[in-house]
């Protein structure tokens, strides 16, 4: 579905394959949202850059003191548009209070996580295209299907994040769902918080990190400073990563 055959610069096959898998996932029903909603979220994520309310908030010292209506495509509830636009436009100033407001407005915590998963996928692939000078890929056509709506019982709120997360210890022993079993096999032990961030929807956590490991480094390579696995060194990789994160004002 996604092809880089016309790119002036040869794109690694594994990146093309990972992007195709991720793009197809957007179009299909997830755990809590159907394919049409997921594609609409992706479209709204792209549209957020044109929102005048977001522009005013971005320029303001205190963004949430400015009320108004987002310039949206109109296909999603305002609470979902608020979540998408704020994560796209001003992620470094999201607050717990803002998150609580989104949940209080009617978005479930599981839906919230799935929306973040779709946003992350679109941002990642769109940023890659911009970085190498290609136009954005057309969004996929939604695939008909129903979300399974299974909440993992292993996810718990321990006060460590805004959302319940799965801890690797929670995945020991018998598990209720296939999604948890996949995550247990994938994690296999100690896991960083960023890998756990979307674990309330296990398949989002799994799929998101499949994309991350393809674009960045496999987990076992991250700390192997004796060897280089990319055309740029560990130091050069972390320099780019760190500078991007500082520009986004991301503390993590």
């Amino acid at each position, binding site marked *: 579905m996604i092809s880089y055959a016309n790119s002036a*610069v040869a*794109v*690694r096959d594994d990146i093309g394959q990972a992007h195709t898998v991720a793009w197809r996932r957007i179009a299909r029903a997830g755990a809590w949202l159907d394919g049409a909603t997921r594609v609409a979220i992706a479209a709204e994520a792209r549209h957020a850059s044109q929102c005048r309310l977001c522009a005013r908030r971005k320029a303001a010292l205190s963004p949430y003191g400015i009320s108004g209506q987002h310039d949206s495509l109109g296909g999603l509830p305002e609470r979902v548009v608020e979540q998408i636009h704020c*994560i796209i436009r001003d*992620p*470094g*100033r*999201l*607050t*717990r*209070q803002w*998150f609580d407001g989104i949940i209080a407005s009617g978005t479930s915590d599981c839906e919230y*996580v799935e929306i*973040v998963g779709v*946003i992350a*996928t679109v*941002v*990642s692939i769109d*940023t*890659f295209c*911009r*970085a*190498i*000078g290609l136009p954005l890929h057309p969004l996929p056509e939604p695939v008909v299907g129903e979300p399974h709506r299974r909440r993992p019982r292993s996810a718990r709120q321990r006060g*460590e*994040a*805004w*959302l319940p*997360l799965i801890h690797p210890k929670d995945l020991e022993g018998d598990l209720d769902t296939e999604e948890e079993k996949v995550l247990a096999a994938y994690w296999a032990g100690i896991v*960083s*918080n*960023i890998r756990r*961030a979307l674990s309330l929807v296990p398949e989002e956590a799994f799929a*998101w990190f499949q994309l*991350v490991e393809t*674009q*960045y480094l496999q987990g076992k390579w991250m700390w192997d*400073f004796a060897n280089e696995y*990319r*055309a*740029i*060194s*560990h*130091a*050069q*990789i972390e*320099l*780019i*990563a*760190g*500078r*991007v*994160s*500082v*520009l*986004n*004002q*991301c*503390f*993590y």
Partner: protein
Amino acid sequence: MLRESSKAKGENYDLALLTGVKGDGNVPYGALLVAFAEAVLGDDDARLSAIRSEIRAKLGDAALIDAAAIAATFNAIDRVADSTGIPIEDAKAAATADFRAALGINAFAENRGEIADPRDRR
């Protein structure tokens, strides 16, 4: 991770490069790669195109792809981290306390009403 790489390699990478300080910071082509990251997140298409060409000429096409993939990954990872409120891990907090304070990175968390170092919650 940049610091860990620096330690492992016995190099002395200047972490201030992350905050926009000029120069290579002892990382080969450091200034060029920082400029690339800034251009990818910016809106000056002509500047991004020029930097892209410079990376291809100096580091090669494969390096451009890998650099683009890293920028793409972290532009999204940052949003996942910030929208879920995950803290940094205790070990990472301990290992980075000095340079987070020195570079002013703690302010990113504190400006959001968060406690930068999760160990301070206890």
